[in-house]
C-alpha cells in the first residue's frame, strides 16, 4: 500500500508540473460552457430583412411595423425593384425579403384579399424555415386585428407545453454533452498518453522490474485522472447550475455515482488504447479521431441521433458517451431515479468490463 501511495504521488507530480496542460484541462470546460451557454444558440432575434413595398399604403406600413416590432426582425433596407433581391442575398446580409404587391390596400378592401410574398435565403435551411413561419404567424395575427368581428371558423387550438426546459435553453443540452465529451477526453486521452509516454522513455521497464505488480502500476496511473475528471465534472455541474440555471432534479448522489462509472469506463478505454499503441503520437491521434469526433457528433450531444440514417444510428450504440448523456439527462433534467437508467448503467458497466478484459489480455501478451 505504501508503495502504491508513492506511485500515485509521482503521477500527481507529472500532472501538476505540466502547467500548460493543466490550464487547458481546466480551461476547456469553463470556456466551452460559456461558449455554448451564451454564444451558440438557435434562438432567432434581430434577423436582418428587406422590404420591397410596391404599394406603400397605410396597411402595408402597419403590417411592416408589426413585423419589425416583433423582435425577430430588423429592417436592413427597403428595396425598389425585383433585381435588388438577388443582389442583396448575394451580399449575404439579409435573410428574408417581404414583397407587398401593388395596390395592396386597395385589393384588400375591394377584393377582400391581397397577396404577400415572402422570399427567404434558404442556404441556411432551418433559419429560413423558421423565419418564414414567424412571418406567416405575424400576418395571421394582423388579419385578426383588421377583422375584429369575424367569427372564427372551426378551430383547434393547440396548447404547447415544453417539458423539462420551458425556455428552450440550449445549455440544457450542452451541460450533459460537455460533461460526456470532456470526461472522455481527459480520462481516455490523458491516461493513454501517460502510459505510452512511460513506454517511450523506458521507465515502464524499470517499473516492471520493481516489485510493483502490473495491476498496481495501471491503477496508480489511473487514480489521479479519476480525481481530475471528477473535479471537472463537479465544476461543470456547478457552473451549469449557478451560472446557467440548469437544474439538478434527480439525486445528486446517483448523478455523481454514474459519473464515476463513466469516468472508469473512459479510463479503461484509455488503458486499452495504450496497450494497443506504442508511441504517444499514435495514442493521441487515435484518441482524437476515435474519441473526439464521435463523442461530439455520434452521441446525441448536438444532433439528435433519431435524425441520423440507420447505419450511423447503429454506430452510435457502441459509443459510451451516448449512454452517459442519456443517463445524465434523465437524472438531471427529467429527475428520474435509478429505475429509469439501470439499462444504460448496465451497458456502460459491460463496456468497462470489456475494455478491461482486452487490456489485461494485451498487457500479458506484451510482457512475454
Amino acid at each position, binding site marked *: 500500500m505504501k508503495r502504491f501511495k508513492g506511485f500515485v504521488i509521482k503521477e500527481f507530480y507529472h500532472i501538476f508540473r505540466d502547467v500548460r496542460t493543466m490550464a487547458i484541462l481546466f480551461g476547456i470546460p469553463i470556456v466551452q460552457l460559456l461558449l455554448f451557454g451564451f454564444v451558440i444558440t438557435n434562438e432567432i432575434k434581430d434577423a436582418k430583412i428587406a422590404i420591397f413595398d410596391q404599394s406603400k399604403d397605410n396597411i402595408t406600413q402597419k403590417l411592416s411595423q408589426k413585423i419589425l416590432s416583433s423582435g425577430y426582425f430588423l429592417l436592413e433596407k427597403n428595396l425598389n425593384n425585383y433585381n435588388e433581391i438577388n443582389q442583396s*442575398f448575394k451580399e449575404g446580409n439579409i435573410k428574408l425579403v417581404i414583397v407587398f404587391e401593388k395596390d395592396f390596400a386597395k385589393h*384588400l378592401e375591394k377584393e377582400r384579399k391581397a397577396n404577400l410574398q415572402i422570399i*427567404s435565403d434558404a442556404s441556411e435551411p432551418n433559419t429560413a424555415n423558421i423565419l418564414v413561419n414567424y412571418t406567416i404567424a405575424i*400576418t395571421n395575427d394582423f388579419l385578426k386585428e383588421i377583422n375584429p368581428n369575424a367569427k372564427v371558423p372551426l*378551430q383547434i387550438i393547440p396548447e404547447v407545453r415544453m417539458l423539462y426546459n420551458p425556455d428552450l435553453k440550449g445549455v*440544457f443540452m450542452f451541460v450533459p454533452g460537455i460533461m460526456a465529451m470532456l470526461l472522455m477526453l481527459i480520462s481516455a486521452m490523458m491516461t493513454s498518453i501517460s502510459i505510452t509516454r512511460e513506454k517511450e522513455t523506458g521507465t515502464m521497464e524499470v517499473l516492471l522490474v520493481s516489485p510493483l505488480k502490473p495491476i498496481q502500476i495501471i491503477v496508480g496511473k489511473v487514480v489521479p485522472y479519476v480525481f481530475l475528471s471528477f473535479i471537472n465534472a463537479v465544476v461543470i455541474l456547478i457552473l451549469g447550475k449557478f451560472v446557467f440555471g440548469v437544474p439538478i432534479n434527480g439525486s445528486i448522489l446517483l448523478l455523481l455515482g454514474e459519473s464515476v462509472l463513466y469516468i472508469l469506463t473512459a479510463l479503461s478505454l484509455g488503458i486499452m488504447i495504450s496497450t494497443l499503441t506504442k508511441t504517444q503520437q499514435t495514442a*493521441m491521434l487515435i484518441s482524437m479521431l476515435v474519441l473526439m469526433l464521435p463523442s461530439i457528433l455520434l452521441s446525441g450531444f448536438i444532433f439528435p441521433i433519431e435524425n441520423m440514417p440507420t447505419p*450511423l444510428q447503429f454506430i452510435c450504440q457502441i459509443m459510451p458517451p451516448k449512454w452517459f448523456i442519456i443517463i445524465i439527462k434523465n437524472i438531471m433534467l427529467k429527475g428520474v431515479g435509478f429505475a429509469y437508467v439501470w439499462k444504460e448503467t448496465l451497458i456502460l458497466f459491460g463496456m468497462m468490463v470489456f475494455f478491461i478484459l482486452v487490456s489485461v489480455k494485451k498487457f500479458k501478451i506484451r510482457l512475454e
Partner: protein
Amino acid sequence: MIPIIFVMPIVQLIVLVHAATFEMKNIRMVVVDNDYSSTSKKLVEKFQRSPFFIISNRTNSYKLAEEDIKNGNAEVVISIPENFEKNLIRENKDKLQLVVNAINGTSAGLINAYSISVISEFNKELAGRNGKPAAAIISQKQINTFYSFWYNPELNFKTFMVPGILVLLVTIIGFLLSGMNVVREKEIGTIEQINVTPIKKYQFIIGKLLPFWFIALFELAFGLTVGKLLFNIPMVGSLGLVFFVASIYLIVILSMGLFVSTITNTQQQSMLISFFIMMIFILMSGLFTSIENMPSWAQTITKFNPVAYFIKIMRMVLLKGSGFAEIKTEFFSLLFFAFTMLSLAVWRYRKTS
C-alpha cells in the same frame, strides 16, 4: 500520415454530413386520445401521414404517455381531451395539448413548428369541409401569403452543411499538421541541424508552410469532388474564386499552426493547444448555428475568426453564386490576417534558444 490525409476527408464528410443534421423525420409521437371520435381519428391520421411523425404508442392515460417521454421512447405527446369533437362543433373551437420533450431546445422548437403546421392545415380542411362559415370567410379580408426558398428550395440541410464541413476539414488537417511539425523536430532534435544552417527565418517558415499549403489545397479539391459526387452540392459560383480565397485562408491557418508549434515544447502540448483554439474557432464560426443569433459581444469576437469568414465565403460563392465584389470585405480581412499571422510566426521562430 498519408492514410489520415486521405481517409479523414471521406469519413468526415460522410459521417459529419449525415450526423450533423437537424432535419427532423420520424419524430416519435404518443397519442392520448380520450375522445375517440371521427375528428380525433382524422387528426391522428393526418399526423401519421406527415413525413415528420410516426405514432410510437397510443394510450388513454396521459400518465403512461409521459412515462414514454421519461423513458426516451417518444419526443412528443398529443393529448386529445374528452368531448373534443362535441365541443368543436358546439363552440367552434376546442383545445388540445401538445407536450414536447424540450431538453434539446432546437429540436423542440422544430417539433413544435411541425406539429402546429399539421394542426393548422387540419383546421383549414375542417373549415372547408364543413362549409358552414364559408360566407363569413368571404366577407373577411384575407392576405394570401406565398413563400419561396431561394438557393435551396427543398430546404436540404446537406447543401448547407457540406461547404462548411469542407472548411472544417482543411482547417483541421492544416492546423494539426503544421501545429505538430516544428515541435516534432524540436522533440527529435533535428531542429538544431536546421538552426546551424544559414537559412533565414522567413525562408524556414515559408519552406515549412508550402508543403502543407499544397496538401490542404489538394484536400479541398478532393473534398469538393466527394461533395459533388456523393451529395450533389450546388456549385453556382466560380470555383476559381473558391480556390483563390482558400489559398489566402490557408496561409492564415498554417501560420497559426506553425506559431503554436514554435511556442510549445512537446507534441502533446501543441496538440492540446491546437485543439483548444480550433474548438473555439469552429464553435464560433457559424458552422452549426448562425452568427446572427449570437449576442453582439460574441459577434464582435467572430470578426477575428478567420474560419467564420471562410465558411461565409464558401457558402456565398457555392450556393448563391456571389462574385468577388460581394465578398471583398471578407476577403480583405482574410488577407490582413494572413499577413499578420505569417509575420507573427516568422518573428516568434527563434534560431537560437
